[in-house]
């Protein structure tokens, strides 16, 4: 069964849990790495998740001088082969969508590789704005999010 990473922009509440999950899933020794999913925050509880599209004809793959980026046929993701990367950062400049990250802390290039088929961000999303679904479900339009029911009243305890 082929799976696909589905993003339902309308359901994102910009909570940032996916960013944290990703950063900690790929960091080490308690140090979070740069997150490979980025939420573009447009307002309170309004966000647009931007993550690697695993392009069919990827610019990053085309520009890499040492073939350090390659398709994993099982997951469909374009993965970094760390042992071939020379940190020239051309892929960071070449990606038309800004989904290649230069991580200064680990001094290397990072990108979403769908965590080898089990994306760590998906279970953390409270609204299902990001999901790991069978390919057949990719075209199903997302359920609109009931934003009213998200708000709750804070009181001073009376």
């Amino acid at each position, binding site marked *: 069964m082929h799976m696909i990473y589905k993003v339902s922009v309308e359901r994102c509440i910009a909570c940032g849990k996916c960013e944290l999950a990703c950063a900690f899933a790929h960091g080490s020794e308690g140090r979070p790495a740069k997150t490979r999913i980025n939420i*573009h925050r447009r307002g309170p509880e309004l966000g647009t998740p931007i993550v690697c599209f695993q392009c069919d004809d990827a610019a990053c793959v085309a520009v890499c*001088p040492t*073939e350090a980026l390659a398709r994993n046929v099982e997951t469909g993701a374009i993965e970094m082969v760390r042992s*071939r*990367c020379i940190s020239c950062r*051309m892929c960071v400049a070449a990606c*038309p969508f*800004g989904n290649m990250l230069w991580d200064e802390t680990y001094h290397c290039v990072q990108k979403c590789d769908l965590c080898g088929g089990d994306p760590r961000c998906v279970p953390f999303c409270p609204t299902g704005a990001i999901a790991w679904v069978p390919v057949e479900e990719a075209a199903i339009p997302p359920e609109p999010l009931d934003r009213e029911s998200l708000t709750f009243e804070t009181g001073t305890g009376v």
Partner: protein
Amino acid sequence: MPTLKVNGRRVIVDSDATLLDAARAAGVEVPTLCQFDGLEPWGGCRLCVVDMSQANWDDDWFKVVTACNHPVDEGMTVITDSDRIIETRRVVLDLLLARCPDTPLIQQWALEYGIEQTSYTPNPDPDDCILCGLCTRVCDHIGVSAISSINRGWGREIAPPFNQPPPDCIGCLACAEICPTDCIPFETSTVRRKIWGKEFEMLRDPKTGEAVITKEQAEHFAERSGVPMTYFETSDRSKRREMAKTFEKLQVVK
């Protein structure tokens, strides 16, 4: 798909594989210094030597070859830990330690082979460069060839032509990043980059001022890919913001 034996373990590899590929497929570690997965093998450091016997040779006739660039052949027998091989590697590291007595990477490797101190006269002017050639090879691979090795013997070193700031260098830092002993100095910021005595202007995002590559890098790849140099200008953060704006305009079609 030839079959061979590495330390008694049978493996099947691609016909264009090297003995190093076969060893790795067999789960056997072979030390290397001048090998890098993205580059053609060179066989210069001599650390990856292994004992190899062809299928049609006598059972006890082995030849010492470098694993990184020796092609595989059906029925080959490979031994990576014979006494002769261990001693060969020990001598290689002994010599390297003489050249680079203060280099942690070489000190560590030498220690693994029982050397605390080189048995030769240590280099009176210690260098961190192990002359593995990875820097020159990656520069050639990218298609720039700004640096090379010069002189022979004692005087052999890595340098740009005539020891001047190399006109061909695009400031990609691949040489510095690939160097196993980090002995190529460089400076970099969002404004400026300096390496091999050459100064570069960074390609900055016109709106945010962020930069990851030099103008020369962008030019080099723009020529090869047929896109304008300005394609590379926009920072990844700006690009994500643009993508987000595009998504906001999309409507869900029912």
